[in-house]
C-alpha cells in the first residue's frame, strides 16, 4: 500500500496528526461547541461539570467553547502571519537574488538591518501606542518577521542561479520574470513549505506571548488571551481547568508544527540555513 513519505517518519506522523486534529477542532468549533463562547448566561467561575466540561470563566462563558474558538483565532493568526511574512520573504529574497546590482545590495542591507532590530521591542512599542486589532497585529508581526526568511530565499536564489537550467533558460532568452515564475519559485516550494510551518509555529507562540503580556486584540478569543484571563484566577485552583487546557493545547499545537518542521528541515537539506526556526 502506498504510504506518503511524511508518514514514514514517526515524529512527523505525530506532528501531522496533532495539526490535523487541532485544525478540525478549530474548523468545526461552531458545530462541536454546545455553547456560544460569547454567551455569558451561565454562572461565573463554575468548576468542571458535565454541562461545562472545563467550567466557566469569570463572566460565565463556557471555557471549552472559548478554547475551541481560541484555537481558531490562534491558528488564523499564526497561519496569516506565516503566509504574509513568507510572501514578503520570498518576494524580497528572490527579487534581490535575481536582480543583482544595486537592488540586491539595497534590499539585502535592509534585510540585515531588519535582522539587527529586536522585533519584540518594536512590537511592544507599537502596541503600547496603538492597541492594534487582530488584523493590524497580523500585519505588524508579518512586517517584523520576514527578514530571516528573506536571507534564506536570497541565498537559495543565488545558488539556484548557478544551476545549469537557469543559465540554459537565460540562453533561450528568458527574462527575470519568467525565470522566477517558471523555475525559481517552483524550486523553492519545499523550502517555502518548511518555512511556512516554522513561521506558523513561531507566530502561534508569539500570539500567546503577546496576549499574556496584554498585547493582543482583546475583543477576540485566542489561546493566549484565554490564558491571560485565566492567569488572574490561576492561584484560586481554577488553573487546572482554565489555565492548563489552553496551555496544553498551545503546547500540542507548537509540538505538532515543530515535529513537522523538523521533518522538513531534515528532509530538505537546508545547509545554507540562515532561516530562524525559532519562536521569536
Amino acid at each position: 500500500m502506498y504510504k506518503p513519505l511524511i508518514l514514514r517518519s514517526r515524529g512527523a506522523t505525530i506532528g501531522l496528526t496533532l495539526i490535523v486534529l487541532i485544525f478540525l477542532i478549530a474548523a468545526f468549533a461552531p458545530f462541536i461547541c454546545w455553547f456560544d463562547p460569547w454567551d455569558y448566561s451561565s454562572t461565573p467561575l463554575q468548576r468542571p461539570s458535565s454541562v461545562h466540561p472545563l467550567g466557566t470563566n469569570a463572566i460565565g462563558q463556557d471555557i471549552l467553547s472559548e478554547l475551541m474558538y481560541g484555537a481558531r483565532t490562534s491558528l488564523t493568526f499564526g497561519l496569516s502571519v506565516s503566509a504574509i511574512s513568507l510572501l514578503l520573504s520570498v518576494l524580497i529574497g528572490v527579487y534581490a537574488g535575481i536582480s543583482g546590482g544595486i537592488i540586491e545590495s539595497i534590499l539585502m542591507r535592509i534585510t540585515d538591518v531588519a535582522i539587527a532590530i529586536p522585533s519584540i521591542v518594536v512590537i511592544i512599542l507599537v502596541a503600547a501606542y496603538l492597541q492594534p486589532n487582530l488584523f493590524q497585529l497580523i500585519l505588524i508581526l508579518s512586517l517584523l518577521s520576514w527578514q530571516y526568511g528573506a536571507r534564506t530565499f536570497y541565498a537559495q536564489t543565488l545558488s539556484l542561479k548557478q544551476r545549469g537550467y537557469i543559465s540554459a533558460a537565460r540562453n533561450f532568452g528568458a527574462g527575470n520574470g519568467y525565470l522566477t515564475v517558471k523555475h525559481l519559485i517552483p524550486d523553492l516550494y519545499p523550502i517555502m513549505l518548511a518555512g511556512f510551518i516554522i513561521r506558523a509555529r513561531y507566530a502561534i507562540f508569539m500570539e500567546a506571548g503577546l496576549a499574556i503580556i496584554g498585547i493582543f486584540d482583546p475583543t477576540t478569543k485566542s489561546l493566549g488571551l484565554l490564558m491571560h484571563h485565566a492567569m488572574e484566577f490561576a492561584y484560586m485552583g481554577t488553573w487546572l481547568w482554565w489555565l492548563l487546557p489552553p496551555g496544553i493545547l498551545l503546547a500540542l499545537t507548537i509540538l505538532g508544527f515543530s515535529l513537522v518542521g523538523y521533518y522538513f528541515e531534515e528532509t530538505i537539506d537546508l545547509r545554507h540555513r540562515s532561516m530562524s526556526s525559532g519562536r521569536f
Partner: protein
Amino acid sequence: MYKIQRKTIAAMLLLIMAVSATAAAGADMIRIADPSGDYGYPTPHGHYSRGSGYIQMSLIFDTLVWKDADGFVPALADEWSYDENENAYTFNLNMDAKWTDGTDFTAEDVRFTIEYFKEYPYLWADLASVETCEVVDDNTVKILLKELYAPFITEIAGSMPILPEHVWKEVDDPANFVDERALIGTGPYMLEDYSREHSSYLYHANHKYYRGEPKFEKVVFIKAKDGQVVLQNGDADMAPVKPEAIETLEQNGFTAVYGSCFWNHKLMINHHKEPFNRTEFRQALAYGINRTELVEKAGRGYGSQASLGFLPPESDWYTDDQPAYAHNPEKARELLESLGYQLIDGVYEKDGEKLQLELVIIAKETKLAEILKMQLTELGIPTTVKALELTTLDSQVKNWNFDIALSRHGLLKADPKTLINLLQGNTSWSARYFENEELNDKLEEQLHEMDKNKRMEIVHEIQKLCAKDLPAIALYYPDYYYAANDKTKWYFTKEGIANGLRLPLNKLSLVRDSGELASPRTEGDAPEESRTSESASATETPMLPAPVVLLFIFVVYLLRR
C-alpha cells in the same frame, strides 16, 4: 562520570534544601502587600498621585483632622469650630505633638503649610478657597475662607498634611527634596527605608507619637502580584484579594475586609451627537441595559448596581428619590419608538438608517464590554466593541469623537463636591454636561452651602436631575476585598480616607488606641481568633519539612546508586 553527575545533582539538591529551610519571620512587624507597590517618595510632593501614595505619606505626616470608620476624629487638632460670621475655621492644636526631630509642633507650622502649598500646589489639598491663615496663639490657628466652602473639613483640614516650617521653609523644589529631613513629620511612623526597585517601604514606630505608642514596631509595604499567594505563603499580613479567594483565606485564619461603592464602572455617552443628544435615547439605553446582570457577570456578583445619580446608596448624601431605571426592555423600546425608531429584523431603524453603535474601551474592560454589547444588540441596537489604547480613548472621548465608551473612576463616597468633577470637570471621565441650567446652578450652590441639611437637599436634587438627564450611565460598583490576619483590625474609612480614598489602609489601624477606639472588640472575639491562628499554624508546620524529607530521600537514593 555518571557518579560525578549524581554527586553534583545531590549537592545541588542539598543546597536547595538548605536554602529552602531558612524561612523568614518577623515578630513585631506588620507587612502589607499590594500589586502596584511603588508609590513614590512618601512626602507630599514626592509621592505618586495615586491614592496609595497618599497613604504612605499619611503615616509620616498628620493632618489637622482625620477619619475613622464612623467619621471625623481629632488628629493634630484636638477640636475645631466654624465661625459663620468670619467664615473661618478655628483649630485647637494638640500640644503633645512633636516633630520627629524633637522640635515642638506649633501653630506656625500650620500657617506655614498653607502658605507653602499655595506656592507649591499639592494635588490632594486644593487651597483655592482659603483666604488666609492666622496664628491665634501657639495652640490655635484660624483659617479664613474666601467664600463659603462646604467641603473644607474633608478636603483641607482632613487631607492637608502639616509640614514642619523649620525644614521646608528653605525648600523651593519640593518634588526633588528627598533629604532625610524631608521625612520629619508628626505622624505615627517614620520611614526607615524606601526601595524603588523592590517597591518596598519600611517604617518604624514614632515612639513619641502624641496619640500614644504605635501598635507595631515596624510597618512594611511590599509589592505582590497576587494577594492570596503572599498571605497564604506567610509573606504578608494584609493584602487585597479576589472576592473568590475569601473563603479559602478564611479557612486559613484570615479575616476579610470588605468595602463597596467606592468605585464605579460608567458608560460615557457622547451627548453632543445624534441620537445621544436626546435624553429619551439615553434613558432608553439605561432601561435597556441590565445592570443586575452586569453585577452578576462582570462583577461576578461582587458588587452592586450603580445608582444613576452617581452617589452610591452607602453615601450619606444619597437619595433614593430618583429614577432607578430597573431593567425594562419594553420601556426602552417604547422610548426608542417615541423617537421614531422602528424595529426591523431585530434592529432599530430610523429613516432607513440602521442604528449601529461603537463601544470604545480599554483592553482591561473587555469582559464588561462583551456583556454590554450582547445586551444592546439583543435590544435591537447592534454594537461593536473596539479596544483602544488609553490615551487614544481619552483623546477621542475628550474630543467627542465616539458613540459610547466605558469609563471608570472612584471618589464616590467623598464629599459631594465630587459631583462637580463627575459632571463638569475637565477630565476624560467627566460627563462635561452643561445643558441643564438648573443642574449647573445646583452644583455651584451646594459647594457654598455650609448647612449640612440644606446642602443635603441640594445634593438630592442634583442626583434627581442627573438620573433624569443621564449625561452618563453609571453601571455598577464593584466590591473590594482585602484579607488580613489578626495582627490588627482593618476597616474602610467613612467617606474614604482624606478626599475619599477607597483603601482600607487607615493609619489608625496601625496605632493601638485609635484602632481599638474605632472598632471596639467584643469579649468573645479574641480567644476565637487566637485559636484560629493556632490551628492555622498547626496545619502549616508539617507542610514545611515534607518536601525537605522527600528531597532528602531522593538525595540518599541518588548517592546510593
